């Protein structure tokens, strides 16, 4: 399958400082050493026929079409597997080669359907192309012999079909699954004529280990592996490059279209984050954008028990503005606020925080980073001076020791996990610090050298123990520390971490990790070469989340693993634009560019540009908004693209707070859990309907391009502008590009960013300014952003969430590959085929103690509440720990999580909840109430009164 507008060079690009000059068909060509003859010829403008070669995969040499003649060499070498040499003279087309190639094609076509005109790959088939290129006119073998034309199709995967009758056994799919994805789900079964692509153990794709990343479909040169959307709708005719709206990897895609209809999303090989790879979500799960559940008209109602009334945009905006002003007049300026969305672009988020600061007149703005990586912002700003990761993803290619702490990359950041797995297969070492046996611990051709399977809630004790080993066994990088770090802070920290109470032996009883493992892991990290730490919400969503981030930074600085490729501190940001949302000033205490609202000079800059005075006081964080709502002092909330009723902890507290709000405005694609409590619903736009930029976990700013008009008639940024104008604060922009120009004008780390620059460079990693006009892949190279790095003492403070006789287990939470966060998008796609409900993972011993078997309904009770989930018995969790995901609202995963949170940022401690698990036979009381409430709210939407025509 060939993506539109994409030239395939046949073999991967190589980089080398040594250049080689050779002659191809009489023309002199110069390429880096290590380049194949095939690629050199393609770069010179002369394509050599090929079938098994493609530039995303290592050369294979099986199809025998790409043979060439090389002067002085016997035979006809394959150009894909032959490397260039100085002075080589190559001929790509001779009479002999013509005959050989035609013969090869005759063999292929003798066992291939001749239904080109009705085939889904018609016009986009490399076999068809090669038949034309070699001038095939007859197949002398005839078609009566044994063949595979009646082989059965495998249509088990919801997104693509495998038709073995069209397979030429080039093995591209098998190699793609190995080299690109790293899952090794496919193989060639049997030999010779009996060779056939096999998924898993000769079963169908859905029963195999296939993760539906689409790499095989992309690699397939024929119709054998083909998207069902192409089979049903025909081939696309144009494309737009855009960026995925799911996770923080930020894959670049080509949205391939017919008119305004998306036919398929194909990963862009020029994508700086993903280099042509994708996962099941970005590749296939985009149908939610046109799902029947989309609400496309604004709606209002007085009470949440009233039916909705559709209104015009003008009426909805006027009503919202009037309500917000009424509430401020009645309860005070600080009685209203807003929550920005990581689903929205940088430009849209910037406008929301501007609306709140300039039009509302307060700093009551927050974002979903509150509940995920806010500790990263605090911890890295304190230690290094910038609230972001230090590397780009490509840096992992130079890493010798990978440490993953509290992250599950194969599920949460799958495309980056594939790059990690490639590096591990090349020989890098792996340390995993996680209570669960995540896939990275033991996968195809990868195995963790150390798995520190700690008890949830003991991260800081473990990181201190690792640092203790480094500091007491002479493993400190003294030269780096002396040159790059504050001396006094380091001395204080060293004295602290060397204390015997931080030793692996002293902490073993608390963490559950054997001391010998900690010592081995620490020695490996400190002496194994370039060492990089990748971490996720298993670090941040704890009562000591910020402390742990600082502990990670301490360890990286102590071992000199900062400031070059292959090392660093890498927060795996969960969402497509959560980094951008933070960059754009969504926090109640910071203006864009992470500058505190009390910073007079920064505030003056914004006041001059925005034309209004701005508050210098920190505003309310999301959890504080709920408390203030319960207190009666916070009465209106504008929520854009967030579903706090599902995603935030202690659901019953959240919904009580939402019920106390007088005017809840929700802007979203669907009637989500929060919208069930809303008084105004403003229909939002999906990523396919907007222009702007997203910023991924590598600080990479990439373009999002509109491929269809907004279904609701207004773009999200236009809604914010209209609301601001209605509230009396004038805003005017002709395009999102102008918004980015304003951001660049006011934010020192963004001064070089513009749509023109992004189009020219492909993407830009901030900081991008005079010092780094093309952006900054690696940070803190010569000095830290704050000057010298700061070591911080990270005393372990046990979580207040204690297990006891009543709640003897610890619940921790996470994500799964096929579903995404609250599931609003992925639940409305065929991804439910892989995960159609949240389950609770429980260790066999704990299950047996309670009489629980696989699939049984289990009541999970905490101090906050109770819910019921079906059981999955597994040894991936250790005894005493249970685990669940949170993708389905009816699961009520957050009914049981508590209000415990990180001391610095109030990031909820989702990862540690003391619970009991009991065999039950009916849903929980909360679930029964939820079911009734949901039924009623769905009815109120379905029976909404249409807008009256003027």
């Amino acid at each position, binding site marked *: 399958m060939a993506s539109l507008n994409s030239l395939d060079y046949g073999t991967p690009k190589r980089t080398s400082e040594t250049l080689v000059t050779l002659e191809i068909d009489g023309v002199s060509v110069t390429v880096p050493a290590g380049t194949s003859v095939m690629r050199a010829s393609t770069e010179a403008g002369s394509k050599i026929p090929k079938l098994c070669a493609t530039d995303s995969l290592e050369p294979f040499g099986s199809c025998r079409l790409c043979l060439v003649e090389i002067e002085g060499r016997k035979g006809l070498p394959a150009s894909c597997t032959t490397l260039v040499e100085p002075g080589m003279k190559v001929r790509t087309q001779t009479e002999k080669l013509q005959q050989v190639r035609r013969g090869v094609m005759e063999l292929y076509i003798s066992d291939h359907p001749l239904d080109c005109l009705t085939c889904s790959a018609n016009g986009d088939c490399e076999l068809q192309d090669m038949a034309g290129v070699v001038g095939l006119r007859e197949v002398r073998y005839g078609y009566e012999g044994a063949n595979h034309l009646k082989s059965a199709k495998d249509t088990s995967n919801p997104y693509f079909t495998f038709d073995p009758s069209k397979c030429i056994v080039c093995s591209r799919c098998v190699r793609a699954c190995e080299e690109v994805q790293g899952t090794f789900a496919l193989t060639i079964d049997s030999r010779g004529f009996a060779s056939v692509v096999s998924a898993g153990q000769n079963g169908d794709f859905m029963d195999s280990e296939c993760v539906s990343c689409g790499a095989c479909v992309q690699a397939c040169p024929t119709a054998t592996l083909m998207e069902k959307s192409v089979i049903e709708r025909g081939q696309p005719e144009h494309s737009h490059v855009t960026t995925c709206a799911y996770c923080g990897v930020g894959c670049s895609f080509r949205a391939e279209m017919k008119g305004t209809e998306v036919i398929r999303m194909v990963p862009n090989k020029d994508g700086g984050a993903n280099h042509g790879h994708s996962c099941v979500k970005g590749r296939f799960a985009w149908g939610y954008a046109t799902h029947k559940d989309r609400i496309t008209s604004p709606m209002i109602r007085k009470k949440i028990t009233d039916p909705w009334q559709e209104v015009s945009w003008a009426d909805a905006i006027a009503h919202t503005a009037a309500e917000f002003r009424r509430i401020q007049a009645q309860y005070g300026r600080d009685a209203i606020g807003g929550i920005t969305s990581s689903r929205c672009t940088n430009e849209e988020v910037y406008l929301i925080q501007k609306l709140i600061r300039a039009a509302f007149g307060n700093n009551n703005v927050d974002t979903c980073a509150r509940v995920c990586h806010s500790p990263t912002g605090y911890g890295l700003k304190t230690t290094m001076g910038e609230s972001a990761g230090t590397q780009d993803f490509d840096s992992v290619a130079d890493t010798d020791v990978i440490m993953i702490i509290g992250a599950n990359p194969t599920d949460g950041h799958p495309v980056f996990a594939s790059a990690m797995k490639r590096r591990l297969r090349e020989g890098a070492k792996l340390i995993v610090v996680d209570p669960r046996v995540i896939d990275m611990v033991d996968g195809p051709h990868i195995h963790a050298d150390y798995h520190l399977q700690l008890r949830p809630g003991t991260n800081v004790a473990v990181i201190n123990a690792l640092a203790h080993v480094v500091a007491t066994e002479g493993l400190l990088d003294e030269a780096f520390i002396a040159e790059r770090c504050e001396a006094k802070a380091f001395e204080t920290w060293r004295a602290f971490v060397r204390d015997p109470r931080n030793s692996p032996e002293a902490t073993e009883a608390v963490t559950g990790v054997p001391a010998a493992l900690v010592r081995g892991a620490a020695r490996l990290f400190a002496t194994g070469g370039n060492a990089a730490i990748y971490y996720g919400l298993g670090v941040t969503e704890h009562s000591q989340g910020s402390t742990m981030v600082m502990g990670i930074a301490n360890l990286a600085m102590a071992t000199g693993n900062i400031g070059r490729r292959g090392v660093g501190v890498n927060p795996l940001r969960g969402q497509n634009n959560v980094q951008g949302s933070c960059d754009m000033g969504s926090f109640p205490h910071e203006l864009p560019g992470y500058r505190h609202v009390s910073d007079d000079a920064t505030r003056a800059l914004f006041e001059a540009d925005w034309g209004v005075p701005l508050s210098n006081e920190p505003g309310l964080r999301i959890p504080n908004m709920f*408390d203030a709502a319960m207190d009666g002092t916070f009465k209106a909330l504008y929520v854009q693209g967030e579903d706090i009723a599902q995603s935030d902890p202690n659901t019953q507290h959240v919904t009580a707070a939402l019920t106390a709000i007088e005017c809840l405005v929700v802007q979203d694609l669907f009637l989500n859990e929060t919208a069930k409590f809303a008084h105004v619903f403003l229909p939002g736009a999906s990523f396919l309907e907007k222009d702007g930029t997203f910023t991924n976990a590598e600080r990479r700013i990439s373009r999002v391009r509109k491929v269809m008009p907004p279904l609701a008639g207004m773009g999200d940024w236009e809604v914010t502008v209209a609301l601001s104008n209605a509230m009396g604060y004038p805003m005017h922009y002709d395009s999102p590009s102008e918004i980015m120009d304003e951001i660049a004008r006011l934010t020192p780390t963004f001064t070089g960013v513009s749509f023109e620059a992004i189009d020219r460079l492909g993407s830009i990693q901030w900081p991008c300014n005079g010092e780094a006009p093309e952006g900054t892949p690696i940070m803190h190279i010569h000095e830290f952003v704050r000057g010298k790095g700061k070591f911080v*003492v990270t005393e372990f403070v046990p979580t207040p969430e204690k297990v006891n006789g009543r709640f003897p287990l610890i619940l921790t939470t996470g994500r799964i590959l096929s579903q995404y966060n609250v599931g609003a998008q992925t639940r409305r796609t065929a991804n439910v085929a892989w995960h159609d409900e949240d389950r609770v993972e429980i260790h066999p011993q704990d299950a047996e103690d309670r009489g629980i078997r696989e699939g049984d309904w289990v009541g999970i009770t905490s101090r906050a509440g109770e819910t019921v989930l079906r059981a999955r018995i597994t040894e991936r969790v250790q005894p005493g720990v249970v685990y669940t995901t949170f993708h389905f609202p009816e699961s009520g995963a957050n009914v049981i999580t508590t209000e415990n*949170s990180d001391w610095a940022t109030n990031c909820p401690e989702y990862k540690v909840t003391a619970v009991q698990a009991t065999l039950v036979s009916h849903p929980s009381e909360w679930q029964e109430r939820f079911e009734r409430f949901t039924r009623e709210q769905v009815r109120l939407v379905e029976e909404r009164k249409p807008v009256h025509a003027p």
Partner: protein
Amino acid sequence: MNVDHLVTMANQIGAFFSSQGTHEEAVDGIADHLKRFWEHRMLQAIGSFVNAGGAALEESGLQQNVVEAVRRLVPPQNNTPIIDAMHNPPHR
């Protein structure tokens, strides 16, 4: 504002800064953190609670360094948080 919750949060902050240096440095750190991150209603609520004193304060378990930091930010005499250079925009 739920004072119990504010006490819990403040004690967590206090526990961190207790490990960062002397008592005075801890009080400085706590006061700075509260000023940078706590909205004025939260400061007001905990300030009123601390300044009211009595058995409720004693039984709350609020750490001494936090009490001192809060008193620095919310002086007992008027229970209004001190914010440097108040610059509130006029209500529209």
